[in-house]
């Protein structure tokens, strides 16, 4: 199916699952349903998954498009090092988080969506993908040229002074044209 990076789709699915999990949890808690404790867990798990999944990974091939304002999330997620970099870990984490949601109707949908996201992440991990932070490119500012900083040591090559002075009556033998007339330097 082409060179699909499964993690890209897993990321979208997990983000959606997190939102649905959290929404189901809010409904369960607000309506004071039976088993609202599972709903409360659903809110916490959903929010956590959203925060984890918000920063998009850098793609292995092609240009990566950031989500708006994802830089601070990228920094937080990056701080966990191999835990967040590895997709096997993410797959198992999502699988674990989705289990309590299955015990209450309000969070079942979020739970199943998260389980599907976990499967797609597993597929991504098997294909050897991993999470890379998208960091702003710290390109060195365009150097105009080293030589600008230091004045030139030698004067530019010029013909000897006698020929440099433009003789008003003898324009053809002048070495070069001056934009302004030059008076003889005595």
């Amino acid at each position, binding site marked *: 199916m082409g060179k699909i990076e499964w993690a890209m789709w897993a990321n979208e*699915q997990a983000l959606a699952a997190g939102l649905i999990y959290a929404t189901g949890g809010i409904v369960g808690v607000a309506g004071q349903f039976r088993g609202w404790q599972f709903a409360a867990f659903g809110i916490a798990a959903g929010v956590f998954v959203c925060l984890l999944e918000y920063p998009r990974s850098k793609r292995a091939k092609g240009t990566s498009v950031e989500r708006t304002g994802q830089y601070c999330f990228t920094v937080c997620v990056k701080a966990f090092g191999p835990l967040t970099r590895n997709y096997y870990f993410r797959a198992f984490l999502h699988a674990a988080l989705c289990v309590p949601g299955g015990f209450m109707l309000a969070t079942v949908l979020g739970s199943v*969506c998260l389980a599907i996201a976990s499967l797609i992440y597993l597929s991504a991990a098997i294909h050897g993908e991993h999470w890379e932070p998208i960091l702003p490119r710290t390109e060195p500012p365009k150097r105009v040229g080293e030589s600008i900083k230091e004045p030139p040591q030698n004067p530019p090559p010029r013909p000897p002074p006698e020929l440099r002075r433009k003789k008003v009556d003898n324009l053809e033998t002048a070495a070069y044209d001056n934009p302004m007339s030059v008076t003889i330097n005595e």
Partner: protein
Amino acid sequence: MGNFAANEGLSIFVILVWLGINVFLFVHFYMAFLFDRYYYTRVILGHALSWARAPAACLNFNCMLILLPVCRNLLSFLRGSIQHCSRTAARQLDRNITFHKLVAYMIAFHTAIHIIAHLFNFERFMDSQLMINSSSLPYVLSQIGNNDNRSYLNPIRSNETNPTIVMFTSIAGLTGVVITLALILIITSSMEVIRRSYFEVFWFTHHLFIVFFIGLVLHGAGCIVRGQTIESEKVHNPIECHSQFETWGQNGTNCPEPVFAGNPPMTWKWVVGPMFLYVCERLVRFYRSQQKVVITKVVMHPSKTLELQMKKKGFKMEVGQYVFIQCPSISQLEWHPFTLTSAPEEDHLSVHIRIVGDWTQAIYTACGGDKTVVLDAWTLPKMAVDGPFGTASEDVFRYEVVMLVGAGIGVTPFASVLKSVWYKHVQENKNVFTKKIYFYWLCPETQAFEWFADLLQSLERQMTEKNMSDFLSYNIYLTRWKDAEAAHLRVQYEAEDDPITGLKQKTRYGKPNWDNEFSAIATQHPGSKVGVFLCGPTALATALGKQCHSHTECGAEFIFNKENF
């Protein structure tokens, strides 16, 4: 602001009508469940019943609509018929994918409301089974129908279960979960990131819509929404009898036990029509794809562009249309759209394919791109072509003055237009409505000029021969260049022919100043309708759209048309 109404008026009207129908259905069905028939249902559920049924009605409406904008052949046929009456209405059909997305968002929104309301419904049904207390009306109501299992009100029949189990064991619940999952998978794989980069995932996952529609039709089969039967309402008036629930059906009361029944499924009535149309659409596509297509010529252009010239019996096209091409030897399931670069007056159809991904690379190899010997015609792969489908460029010859703007490979529909122009004027000398064409080509690299420059060169020659050099005014803009190239260009500044394209018209550097261009054209053609046609990136579309709306000097009206793939 003057052109805004002309450009956007019909779209806004369509959207307002659509939103209006949604609001009407929502309110109407909300109120429909406030009647006495559902009095006892509401005793248990409260207003959550109405909050679930109202979005359900809107979902029926939107699921009916969602299949229609993607019936390409039907739309193409409609477009051809409407065009004779109204150009504006025909242009509206170009925005079909935008409408499809809007309806999809509405489906997602109503699904959310519907599910949340049903969560409350399930919880309240469960609650009323668990209040084991004969002096509670909800409990008494839930016990009705325990004998015959048909006249019941509460779909949860026992108190030893929980809502999750009930959901998975009822038709409505199970189909609901399945179709919601299908919907979520469809939506997440349709995000722009996935769609643009991994089209196959988007396309194959989108076919879950089949699961969605089957589940949708079956969703109401369990008749889980229950209200009092008409016969029961005649003998048992809920307003009078609800307070006497402890003595229903006993001797001496005039309130027999109420009898409940479920509503039959309604969704199939909404969606069967569009489903049938869509099946016809796929059959038409399949039939057209089975027609024999022969590759007559393959040309490799230096800018990683492959030109395929093909012949198909009975193929008719208009300028600027596109086709879907399939190569069974590469992939049975993939159809890719390409704009036709040949003119209707030619005897073959040609497409220029840029080699960017797997499929195009495979086509390149299959057509002998990496070999230097000439291949025999019978070794070339078999192709299938579906189309042609109409897009905005069809309308070019209906405007007196036309601005064509192409960015990079987006110039391809205009290749067809310009070739057709040449044929019409030079060979057949028909009386053409279009009097002047302004052509703008924005390109980031010089190599891409090559195949199109040939076309422009021959046009240029023909126009000068026929003394019509001012019919077509073209401007080519090179938007990126390397320093080394720039040095060469500076030196060649004085040459008569352009060093890049070899044309008499000089290539310009950088981006065009649209304000100046629009003003100049408006002053040159006062009071006329100018058609602006763009095939390029969204940023450029926004810029040109704004220019069209803001330039109304001398009474000229700019109508904006954008190709969308």
